[in-house]
């Protein structure tokens, strides 16, 4: 297993370099260093000299990818790409271009509110959706199952924004049960978290409930289920003890991939509920043409996805003893 892990980690390096290169290329196709300088200096009264000084002070006065005036390795190292990207691999994220703030500090501060919302949504949601799907499977072919599927399809068809605005309108505006938006300090934050968590759970119930129902139904006709029933096990035992365990691989595949979202947050949800998380950090940076933040967030997202996928592979060995990582 260690060899497998080592190999996967080595594979991650070219992936991260590639992601970095792609981000860099896409960013600078749209924004030139001059555009970045103008954005940071403001649109009023910006002189060409001020733009040059800004670029010089931030190291954006170099060529983008290849420096034809340099010799040897400096042709590649004395460039914006190398100077601004290589230190990411040491997790040195530097400072934001827009406000000069330390990016690592900002991420460390902003990821916890995102995590505080996303973790309960992830855990409670997984339990709720699995239970709901198992219930539908238990009543498969009955009116309860049909009604459940109709409910799921209807719930899936409604925009996520509707749940947010509807939740705020009902729970906060009409019934005054929770703050419309905002966040608190320490344990006082729970009052602000209830509504976004409930809205998140409800908004995904249709989609995830139906997906999990499909996973479980696939298992229901397998021989081991028939055997379990033949041995006289109750339906609950069959479902929770056998079907659920065997359906864990597709569930885990879907679940672990969302791990980065636990930290990186949700843009729309955080924006509407005023949660000071990481969800909007990247979008704000793109709007502000803040390359330092954009490259960091994309890099971090890639690292977390790779870590999530490795964890998924590891989790397979836990839920299915036949899986061996070599």
């Amino acid at each position: 297993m260690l060899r497998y892990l080592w190999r996967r980690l080595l594979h991650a390096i070219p992936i991260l370099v590639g992601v970095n290169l792609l981000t860099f290329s896409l960013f600078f196709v749209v924004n030139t260093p001059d555009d970045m300088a103008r954005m940071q200096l403001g649109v009023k009264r910006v002189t060409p000299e001020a733009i040059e000084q800004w670029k010089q002070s931030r190291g954006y006065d170099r060529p983008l990818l290849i420096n034809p005036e340099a010799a040897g390795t400096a042709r590649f190292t004395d460039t914006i790409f190398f100077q601004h990207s290589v230190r990411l691999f040491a997790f040195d994220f530097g400072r934001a271009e827009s406000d000069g703030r330390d990016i690592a500090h900002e991420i460390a501060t902003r990821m916890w509110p995102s995590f505080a919302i996303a973790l309960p949504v992830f855990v409670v949601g997984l339990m709720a959706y699995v239970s709901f799907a198992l219930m539908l499977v238990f009543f498969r072919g009955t009116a309860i199952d049909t009604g459940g599927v109709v409910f799921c399809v209807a719930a899936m068809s409604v925009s996520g924004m509707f749940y947010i605005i509807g939740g705020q309108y009902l729970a906060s505006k009409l019934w005054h049960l929770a703050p419309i938006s905002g966040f608190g300090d320490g344990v006082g934050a729970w009052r602000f978290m209830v509504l976004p968590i409930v809205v998140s759970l409800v908004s995904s119930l249709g989609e995830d409930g139906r997906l999990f129902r499909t996973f479980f139904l696939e298992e229901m006709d397998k021989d081991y289920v028939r055997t379990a029933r033949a041995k006289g096990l109750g339906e609950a035992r069959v479902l929770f003890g056998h079907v659920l365990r065997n359906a864990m691989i597709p569930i885990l595949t879907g679940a672990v991939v969302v791990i980065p979202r636990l930290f990186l947050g949700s843009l729309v949800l955080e924006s509407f509920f005023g949660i000071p998380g990481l969800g909007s950090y990247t979008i704000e940076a793109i709007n502000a043409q803040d390359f330092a933040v954009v490259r960091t967030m994309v890099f971090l997202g890639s690292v977390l996805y790779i870590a999530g996928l490795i964890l998924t592979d590891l989790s397979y060995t836990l839920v299915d003893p036949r899986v061996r990582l070599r």
Partner: protein
Amino acid sequence: MRLRLLFAGVLAMALGGCDLPWNSPYPAADATANTFYAGFAERPKHLDPVQSYSSNEISITAQIYTPPLQYHYLDRPYRLVPQAAVSLPRPAYLDAAGRPLPEDAPASAIAFSVYEVTIRDDMRYQPHPAFARGPDGTHLHHALAPEALAGVFSLADFRQRDTRPVTAADFVYEIKRLAHPRLHSPILGLMSDYIVGLKEYAERLREVNAALAREGRGEEWIDLRQHPLEGAEVVDGRTFRIRLKGKYPQFVYWLAMPFFAPMPWEADRFHAQPLLAARNITLDWYPVGAGPYMLTRNDPNRQMVLERNPHYHGEAYPSEGEPGDFEEGLLRDAGARMPFIDRAVYSLEKESIPYWNKFLQGWYDSSGISSDAFDQAVQVASGGQVMLTDEMRDKGIRLKTAVAPSTMYMGFNMLDPVVGGQGERGRRLRQAISIAVDYEEFVSIFANGRGLPAQSPIPPGIFGYRDGEAGMNPVVYDWVAGRPQRKPLEVAKRLLREAGYPDGRDATTGAPLVLYLDATARGPDDKARMDWLRKQFGRLDINLVVRATDYNRFQEKIRKGNAQIFYWGWNADYPDPENFLFLLHGPQGKVSAQGENAANYVNAEYDALFERMKNMDNGPERQAIIDRMVRILQDDAPWIWGMHPKEYGLAHGWVNNRKPNQIANNLLKYQRIDTEARAEARRAWNAPVLWPLALVALLLALLVAPAWLAYRRREAAGAIRLRAGG
């Protein structure tokens, strides 16, 4: 039972007491605190006074910093009054040899203007660790070792703080900071043209900075006290002198902006420590001022909190205003000591819907009106008067409107061979389009009536603006029944014919006239606007092609003169006509000089008049010149004059002394809150409605119970079958 009691206790504690409405976004302890609540949609990027320039930044820094001057809160037209200064400075004029000149000397004879500013003697800075000294007199926090910073994550973690009086040297220090190579002040370019020696000073500091960088000391503090600046000098402890090149009467307006507020060298020294910068404890994040408020919490992802500066010298509320202020109760606090509010909490609110709902629930004291909420907030009477809806009035909400000192226009690129040029053909084409594009309709459809169709670049409230028939643009309007009426389309068609495009076709080639509009159109609202514009041009049989692009490319096109027609706008820096008329000053062309004249308009007579006008004091002679300049512009029509936005602001009845002021930013100190009335209204408006919770529980029970029963039945049925089979 014990568990139930425990749960109830925890719930009560968590809710912070029964007095706190469940939907309160604030702690229970703040229920009757003397705090002002508002929101912000965009986080400020810079709070360093030499860098912050955008309105969302200045709305914070203006409460903290004390530049020499400020605008009178109530009086109109806007006028300057002293803030840190004891009086308004009058410039002394000198010729090239340094000899004094009279006040009315011609601008061409004036080589230098000297502003001598004397400041109050009772100003002290907010408590700050940068001022803390040890028993031996040395500053405690100017050379921090890494171990001294254990447990320090924000400025609040420094326990030892102190203050000191504001001196004239602090103002000079700040002026020097405009040239600091690491700060990139947005007004360095402009001020280098005026403040004697500032350009050279910036060069010198760049060399110093580069030398430090070469030695690997690139982050080391540069002590600006060691580097004198010719144009800014200390006269004595309370007086400093600024020396300008030539005559620049608008300079006094800059003295009302935080760019010229005092900055103690100790704060600059303290925040220049790289160890603090690594913890984001920078001057750009923690302003240090002597104003009525100090920033005690800066978490722009969530909240920014201003608290009363205990060392603020105090200031009396104005005793005079414009007619009508007394009747509106705006002089009730005349002479009272400011500030009235202890604390101001600004919460991040990116979306307009939650902001609006929280305002209606009383959690925010003031609000603008978004398009979504317009009909809920405002109704227009048959006579055209704007008034609040009954729902707003019942809540005691008050509406204040004011025309912003801004202009939103459509520019023609005068370098373009079709729409540009000083020839008759281009002029008549521009005039025809100016008539055809119906801005009254635009304001009605796209701005809910919140705008004033413009007659010239100068908005109301700025000297030089003329109301009524005298101010009407005779090229586009006729004066009918006491108001301007847009000329009929036939006039525009005639002008188009005279321009050589009868029925929208080139008279010589017969080709249809196709014009191009460059815009940063993005959303569905923009699409509707563009469709409307196509329709307006279509009325003249002109085919308008919209070239939508991102902001970067748009700016590039404007810079290079590749746009033909474009949308643009300008917000006043200060209330002087020069700040609008310079947008069409030839030597400040965007293509020729990277200036702000985006239309690249050049007219020799206009340019000559501008040079005269900009150096004059307000008076009949200046007005006459402005009238002539405006008339030239109206004839040449380098812009479709567009509109001046009208801002609608709402405030709850418990907010007192609120008057729209579109130029000043240091407005918080004037406001007063009736905290008891607010607390009562909040309680009344936010009582929790509990029946939906019971209903949800009941529905869940109704859903789960049949499923549970069915499950039990099936399990039992299976057992019977098994037994029967066995």
